[in-house]
């Protein structure tokens, strides 16, 4: 794969040590008062969202700009089942249903889009999907309660700890599935599709099936995050649930870390959150401006991502992503 062949054992022990640290951290400090616990929670969520985008875009080369659609579906499924009384607070079944709802939409919409559209057109189509769902939720009448949104009774909130651990669990499970996929036949097939769809197809890879698989898996974990977010904010409206931030931030983090790499997105998530928080602490008023400037600086000086910097070989992959095949002579 793209990573340098460091010893697998070392990798595994670093990963275990990190997970162990994250598990005991909120038990050692006063979790409710700790800002860092909240930041970690946010980071776990973004790790999942980033890898959800990365599996389709980074590995299979299908750049989706519609992840906020799946996030929003997750939010709304949870909020509506909660309102109807079929789901309780932090109900695992409701969360799975939210993920499944997003996955079903991914399959239904993905079938025509992935079969017919390549590259940019697929990206534009998914962007359209997100906007359609947003407008539909806005006009959904009593079902989605329009612009006012659905409120979940917030008096059930007791502690941030359950959110923290659920987000950690989801992100670890996402990472594990991604690792197994990347190191299996499926992963090889996805990369083959990204590198050359026609050649992959000629070698007997059912490209549509694999593209749908990657896209749906990404949608599923994104829906899970949406569901957890619904339980966290207690109020779901279209502006929050279908916010473009849910697609833009993960993409930014993955590109910062390294597209199509396993560890890169995690590094991207933590470094971007750290950078944004620092900027926010130093200049509370100006921070959105610096966030914009930060994105510009990263793309100017680190366009290949952190991973390429660490492993020393350029992540040429970014240029191969089908929508953005750039001029061969201009490289």
């Amino acid at each position, binding site marked *: 794969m793209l990573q340098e062949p460091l010893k697998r054992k070392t990798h595994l022990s670093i990963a275990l040590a990190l997970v162990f640290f994250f598990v005991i951290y909120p038990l050692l400090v006063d979790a409710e008062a700790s800002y860092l616990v909240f930041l970690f929670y946010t980071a776990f969520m973004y790790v999942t969202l980033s890898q959800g985008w990365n599996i389709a875009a980074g590995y299979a080369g299908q750049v989706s700009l519609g992840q906020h659609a799946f996030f929003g579906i997750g939010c709304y499924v949870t909020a509506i089942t909660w309102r109807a009384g079929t789901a309780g607070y932090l109900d695992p079944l409701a969360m799975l249903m939210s993920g499944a709802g997003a996955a079903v939409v991914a399959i239904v919409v993905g079938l*025509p*889009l992935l079969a*017919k*559209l390549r590259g*940019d*057109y697929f*990206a*534009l*189509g998914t*962007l*359209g*999907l997100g*906007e*359609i769902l947003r*407008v*539909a939720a*806005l*006009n959904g009448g009593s079902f989605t309660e329009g612009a006012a949104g659905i409120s979940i009774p917030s008096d059930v909130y007791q502690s941030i700890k359950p959110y923290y651990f659920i987000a950690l669990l989801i992100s670890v499970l996402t990472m594990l599935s991604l690792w197994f996929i990347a190191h299996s036949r499926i992963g090889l097939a996805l990369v083959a599709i990204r590198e050359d769809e*026609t050649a992959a197809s000629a070698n007997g890879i059912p490209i549509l099936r694999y593209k749908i698989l990657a896209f749906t898996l990404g949608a599923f974990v994104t829906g899970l995050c949406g569901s957890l977010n619904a339980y966290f904010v207690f109020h779901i409206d279209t502006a929050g649930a279908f916010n*473009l931030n849910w697609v*833009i931030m993960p*993409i*930014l983090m993955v*590109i910062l870390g390294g*597209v199509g790499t396993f560890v890169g997105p995690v590094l991207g998530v933590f470094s971007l959150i750290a950078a944004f928080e620092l900027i926010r602490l130093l200049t509370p*008023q*100006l921070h*959105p*401006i610096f*966030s*914009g*400037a*930060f*994105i*510009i600086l*990263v*793309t*100017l000086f680190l*366009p*290949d991502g952190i991973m390429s910097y660490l492993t020393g070989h350029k992540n040429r992959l*970014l*240029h191969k*992503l089908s*929508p*953005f*095949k*750039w*001029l*061969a*002579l*201009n*490289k």
Partner: protein
Amino acid sequence: MTTFPSASVFFQVLINGVLLGCMYGIAAIGLSLIFGTMRIIFLAQGAVMILAAYCIYWMATLSPINPFFGFLLILPVFLGLGWIMYKGLFQKVAKAGANPSLLLAFGLMVLLEHLMSLIWSPTTRSVITSTSTSSLTLGSINISVTRLIVAVVALIATGLVFLFLKKTMLGKAVRAASEDMSAAALLGISPTYVSAVTFAIGIALAGVAGVAACITYPFDPFFGFLFSLKALIAVAFGGLGSVGGPLVGGVMLGVLESMSAYTFSAGWADAVAYAAFLLILILRPEGMLGRRSIEKV
């Protein structure tokens, strides 16, 4: 659902849509040109439009200059701005690939939006012109004079870009580059020069669209993203990379929006537009006017 009570109401809605669509069209041409040579969706298009809108707002507020004069003023200023943006930011990043360029455009959008919001506050502004309230009456149809002027400017701008692309050597180079950049480079066309020219024209068109938007609509610093999306849909309607296509696409989008706003409700108009956008992407990804190109293996 409401049906049209008479032919004149139908024509009224149709004309409103065409006039609205012309504005989408100008922004869409810029987007399409930039896409043609750089292969990126320039997300900051809308933010650049709003920047132009603010320029006109302050010009009209602080000086007695007629806002319509802004069209002439914005054109050279934003041509220069586009050139500087390309040379300063995009030229280097374009070498690294089109994906970082897309990200750069996004960063630029965030930066511009928040800068404008910080400097000029997020209050909604509007530019009042001498023709804001006047309208022409043709039979039983009313046409807003401001919107008519906007539509005429859109047509002139499109015509100028069309002439530039068809009649000048540089325009020919731009067309060659958007057809096949490596082949164009083999023939001695400098990719960076052509990209810089195209980018500058794209930004200038965004500026013109911004002037058009600010004299017809109230705006705030974050209003631009909606326009980026609308321009994108217009481009998809007309076909990526052409000149006439996006204008027609913009008009189609405008008509579709005003028709569905009338027959369903204003809230659903956007959904109808996005749904049509998805359908067109799936059924005719080369756009309604585009030529079908055969992918070489």
